[in-house]
């Protein structure tokens, strides 16, 4: 397992995503508020580029007509057949226990720490002044 620096924090604004390639694998890095999450860019259903789908909320209704918008901006909807996945866990809404997109650990690290510890910078040059998004893979 290595830690890969994939972006500067300010490159990914809240509510957006960036698709990066780490060890030949495409990963979507999502920013929800100030939290970052990583999902494989491959839908477990039929392999669509999942992370290019729309970022949506979770619509729920404990009873018909009792509508509630929850978890705004925390779901990704597959661009092919519109299955919804939880950005935080990769779990699908239609079958959370058996249909899951692989999720990766994503952390935010100050450049100072990265300069000291082992990491792979790939295409992102690191300086001590900035803060970075780091994927473990």
């Amino acid at each position, binding site marked *: 397992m290595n830690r890969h620096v994939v972006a500067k924090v300010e490159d990914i604004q809240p509510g957006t995503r960036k698709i990066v390639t780490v060890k030949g694998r495409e990963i979507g890095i999502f920013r929800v508020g100030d939290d970052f999450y990583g999902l494989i860019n491959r839908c477990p259903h039929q392999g669509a580029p999942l992370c290019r789908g729309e970022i*949506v909320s979770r*619509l*729920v*209704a*404990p*009873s*018909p*007509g*009792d*509508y509630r918008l929850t978890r705004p901006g925390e779901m990704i909807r597959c661009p092919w*057949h*519109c*299955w*919804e996945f939880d950005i935080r866990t990769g779990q699908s*809404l*239609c*079958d959370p226990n058996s249909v899951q997109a692989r999720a990766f650990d994503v952390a935010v690290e100050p450049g100072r720490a990265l300069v000291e510890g082992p990491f792979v910078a790939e295409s992102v040059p690191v300086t001590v002044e900035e803060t970075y998004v780091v994927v473990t893979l």
Partner: protein
Amino acid sequence: MAHSQGDHGGRDCLAGAIDCDIHPAVPSTRVLLPYLDDYWREHILRRGLERENLETSSYPANAPINCRPDWRLPSGPPGSSLAALQSHLLDRLRPSFAICNVIHGAQVMLSEDLSAALCRAINNWIRAEWLDQDPRLRASIVVPPHSAELAAEEIERCAPDRRFVQVLLLAMTELPLGRRQNWPIYRAAEAHGLPIGIHAGSSFRHPPSALGWPSYYLEDYVSQSQGFAAALNSLVSEGVFVKFPALKVVLIESGVTWLPASLWRLDKTWRGVRSEVPWLEQLPTETVRKHVRLTLQPFDAPPTEKQLQTLLEQLGSDRMLLFSSDYPHWHFDGDDALPAGLPADLVRKICVDNPLETYPRLKETMR
């Protein structure tokens, strides 16, 4: 495993079974007159309606399929004689109970009030002339489906008599069955522990097929399964089983083979449009297995026993099928009311366990 047809479809196996669909017929509108309240008796006599038989047009009395030849009566429409029912079915196959489902024009009438008045009369008539005369009989409450309020009132009126075990609707009336206008009916039924029986049939104010009016009975009868699929789809999608979690629905004369494919499609599509019906948190198939039952006759069995086994596997639950003879309609000959090829343990479930689970009121008077 399966017995031979004559053996397991026959009399001995059915002794003690619960027949979930028989059809007593109102012999003529005249017999309802004493069971109407004064206002509506006068109304009907002034209009001369007592001279109309008010049958629905889908199963004309003289069509061969409408009655087994050896069950035809010397006079009166098929199913209109209690004595004949006793000798043809009750004393012969010896079911412990048989549930009377009256199909009558009152259920599809345009006037909500007349429809309600006639439904009240039919419920009074079935109670006095059938239920009071034979302890093996139970009945569905007939209601005016186009007025959910009046239907709910009739459920309230009849429910205290525990021999009414179900509320009867038709698959294709003016609204898809899941629509909220119908919910007072489901609310009342659930409150009294009564399943909703949905019988094949239409008000025939709209075509029985989405493609328009058919020319032949063949088309009409086969289209019924599409009507049932649409009715079930509506009940599930509108969230009736989420709103009324204790409600059970019995599809009567729906056939069975259409169900697995219809559910596969429902499940598959639900995964992509789930957010549109956010009250459906579960795979629709799970909801249907929990809430929906189907009567057996007329059974659209596949050609071979092996295919029948496959169908039963696809249903994925041994709790869904309920025995029915569909008396006096002609779906089997002799005493072979059960289709061949059903495993013996499933037969027991179909004949006894499943009906008792579906109709909790039957257990109260089990001998």
